[in-house]
């Protein structure tokens, strides 16, 4: 690895030049054709840093130090290496629809890891509380590593990520600290549930593993699991975060995350068919695992077996398909159709939100280990 001294621009003044250089470096790779460029579009956040600095982990100190110690020891450091298990992939021979959906899957995964990295690094840089900045530093390390690993898989497919956003205007949005805890906790735990469910399925059906990256999902999701553990401890530091009005916020986050996942997964039929996974089954399985895990800290779980649950997820998905179709159609008619479909999606969401949740008595200690 070379670090170029300033003021070099990586010896290339334009992205095209840099990409051209990449091609030379990669001459051993099968993809000699010009790489297709995909622009990463992460969001940029600020938060209330004083509030975040005020967190006091002394109430959970023992568990906290153990967890941070384990993350510092970096058990997965050597894991993200390509070895003999990394099979050759015939990208050109891949069925086009599957290829498009799989690449979309890799790009959104890469963007999510990358966005996490940007967010965590910002927290690390601007925070003053050593416990908190250490955690964010370690999480940023893991996310950057995951993003690099996915990036490599994308490069094999002839897709180069473009970091051009760096020199484009970036607007900083705002995220309340407690929402960072809920959203990050959930995204890490549901990430774990998603990866491990696919990993276990492919363990039982190796013939459906159409790309080697799935073999790395177990250790990968163990990183996600640890990150989630840290946020479970943070949520434990202040009982207000999981009581009173915040219960409704937790219900909102759970509903929003579960329903988005359901809609999104149904947009990748070829991807799921190739894995031999029914997206509806997969969704319920992931929700079940995530709900079970989240009982460590959330005072409620969603009733995913309620008679109104699945029908409204289906309605949201239909409304979403209608919104895309209307957007493509364009014009006044398209605009009208979009409004109607958006109203339908909103109604389905409200219906999901009004399903009574299942109360949960949170245990004294939150510590969990990956069990699936």
């Amino acid at each position: 690895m070379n670090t170029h001294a300033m003021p070099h621009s990586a010896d290339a003044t334009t992205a095209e030049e840099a990409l051209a250089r990449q091609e030379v470096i990669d001459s051993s790779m099968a993809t000699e054709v010009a790489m297709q460029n995909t622009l990463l579009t992460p969001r940029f956040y600020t938060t209330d840093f004083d509030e975040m600095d005020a967190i006091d982990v002394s109430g959970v100190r023992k568990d906290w130090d153990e967890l941070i110690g384990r993350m510092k020891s970096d058990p997965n450091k050597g894991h993200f290496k390509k070895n003999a298990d990394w099979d050759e992939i015939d990208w050109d021979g891949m069925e086009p629809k599957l290829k498009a959906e799989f690449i979309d899957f890799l790009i959104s995964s890469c963007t999510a890891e990358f966005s996490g990295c940007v967010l965590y690094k910002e927290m690390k840089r601007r925070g003053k509380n050593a416990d908190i900045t250490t955690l964010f530093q370690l999480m940023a390390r893991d996310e950057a590593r995951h993003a690099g690993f996915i990036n490599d898989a994308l490069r094999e497919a002839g897709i180069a990520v473009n970091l051009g956003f760096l020199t484009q205007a970036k607007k900083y949005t705002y995220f309340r600290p407690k929402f960072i805890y809920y959203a990050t906790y959930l995204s890490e735990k549901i990430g774990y549930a998603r990866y491990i469910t696919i990993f276990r399925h492919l363990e039982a059906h190796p013939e459906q593993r159409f790309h080697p990256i799935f073999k790395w999902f177990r250790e990968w999701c163990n990183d996600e699991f640890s990150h989630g553990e840290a946020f479970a401890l943070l949520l434990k530091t202040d009982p207000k975060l999981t009581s009173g009005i915040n219960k409704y916020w937790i219900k909102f986050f759970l509903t929003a995350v579960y329903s988005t996942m359901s809609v999104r997964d149904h947009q990748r039929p070829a991807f799921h068919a190739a894995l031999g996974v029914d997206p509806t089954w997969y969704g319920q399985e992931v929700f079940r695992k995530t709900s079970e895990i989240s009982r460590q800290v959330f005072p409620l779980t969603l009733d995913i077996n309620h008679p109104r649950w699945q029908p409204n997820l289906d309605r949201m998905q239909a409304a979403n398909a209608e919104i895309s179709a209307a957007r493509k159609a364009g014009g006044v008619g398209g605009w009208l159709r979009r409004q109607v479909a958006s109203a339908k999606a909103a109604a389905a969401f409200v219906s999901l939100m009004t399903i009574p949740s299942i109360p949960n008595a949170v245990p004294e200690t939150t510590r969990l280990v990956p069990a699936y």
Partner: protein
Amino acid sequence: MGLIFREKEIAPCTVRVSHCFDELSAHVKFDNGAVVHPGDTVLVQGPEIMAPYGEVVEERRTAIITRASRLEQLWTRATGDFEFMELCEFSFSEEVMS
């Protein structure tokens, strides 16, 4: 900070891009200690920055920070929270099935 009008300021910054197998990351750090607030926009001047594969690039640049007006800042604080879905691996990428 104005209620309605935006103000611009210039800040020297360091951009670090890692385009390696074990780290894909990109960060902008203001060298004069400037901090951004909700609704502010940052534009790094100069050509696109892209590290060749396997390398880390660090560059000094100049950034223009456009400070959000008071109203914009309030708006961003009130609405920003709803963009959290971005953090989920199944979030919507910009190039869905294009």
